[in-house]
């Protein structure tokens, strides 16, 4: 398993929680299952995908597009962080 709270993903989680709260009018925890327990639709998850791609200039493709990657804020942050790595990796080695 990856370590959840690297500085990168921590900031991402805060941003994503802010986005979700603004869109749903509800406060969420980073570990809450947004779809089963949270009652959000997979349709909303589609909007989240588009939001993440536009905000973080990433492309979520192929196998990465599975719903499980968007089930919690923590997983979304991990996904974004991983997909951003190639750009940052050149500098940080």
């Amino acid at each position, binding site marked *: 398993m990856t370590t959840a709270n690297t500085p990168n993903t921590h900031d991402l989680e805060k941003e994503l929680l802010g986005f979700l709260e603004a869109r749903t009018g509800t406060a969420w925890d980073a570990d809450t299952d947004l779809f089963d327990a949270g009652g*959000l*639709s*997979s349709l909303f998850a589609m909007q989240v*995908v588009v939001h993440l791609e536009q905000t973080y200039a990433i492309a979520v493709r192929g196998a990465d*597009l*599975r719903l499980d990657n968007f089930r919690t804020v923590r997983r979304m942050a991990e996904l974004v962080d991983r997909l951003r790595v190639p750009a940052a990796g050149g500098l940080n080695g």
Partner: protein
Amino acid sequence: MADTVKCLVWDLDDTLWQGTLLEDGEVHLPDEVRKVVMELDSRGILQSVASRNDHEHAWARLEAFGLAEYFVLPEIGWGAKSESVRRIADRLNFALTTVAFVDDRPAERAEVTFHLPDVRCYPAEEVLALPGLAEFTPATSTVDSRRRREMYQAGFLRDAERAAAPGPDEEFLRSLDLRMRIGRATGEELSRVEELTLRTSQMNATGVHYPDAVLRGLITDPRHEVLVVTLTDRFGPHGAVGVLLLERHPGLWHLKLLATSCRVVAYGAGATLLNWLADSAARSGVHLVADFRETERNRMMEIAYRFAGFEGLDEAPCPCAAVLAPAPEDSGLQRLHLVPGPRVVSTVVTVDAVDLGVPDLGVPDLDVPDPGVPGS
């Protein structure tokens, strides 16, 4: 062949009516022009307005002429007309290649053409000739096309309520009382299907167009299912909003066409259909393989497939696909695969659907894996 025009944007002064409202005070609407507006409306072509005028003044005049209801999303103000046309196309979710603009002033047409080269522009002298042009003559005219404007207007009401609704979208969607019907295509529904595949680009998963004659042939083919999807809500009907073409193979259903109207994307129609199909396939003990060709406009459909659990056959091969002819080389066609399980079809849409476990014309001799046996 050029695209059929889906929306015609009218200038008002000296184009729709004779005279300049702000200068002449009085303007005259020729009967022949009124007939053009009503004829295009009956063909399902939406009409809008891009006019340099005072909005209230000009709209009041359209109402006095009894024409206001024929125009959706009017842009009456002082900005560039290219911007007005662009906003109208954006809000309708129409490609600019399907939008036309008519204006008596060459400079206005040139301005629109400069910024939006895909928009077809016509001078005011041609207004009476428009209904005779091929691009204003849709191949089919159906119940839905005659009511298209009303359906869009109901849609704008929905959007306004939605924007005003507090809380998650889900709650709002439930309040709409959405009802989806999925049935085998018959008779008149076929022309609705063809119209849908012609008019719908955004959510056509395969980008493959099936002409009326081909679909008619497939309706009586026992291997194929041609399904039409209609949707209603408390605001009224959305009409025919989706089409599926399915071919039955032993142990496998092949989804060859799935198109939904861009008007119902916001209601999760694509995801609802995929969930229903997956649930039906699970009951029949078959796998699903869906054709998918990436286009600029079907990103949401790709997400819908993936969120429904589909995976690329190239990522996760499955022997079930051996019965399929290979996708044509260079077609850009991907095959997405799902081992379906029973599932909740939708938490917001009530679905009334045909039972696919019972083939319409005889039962093909299927060698179906027993769904009761856990995966080996």
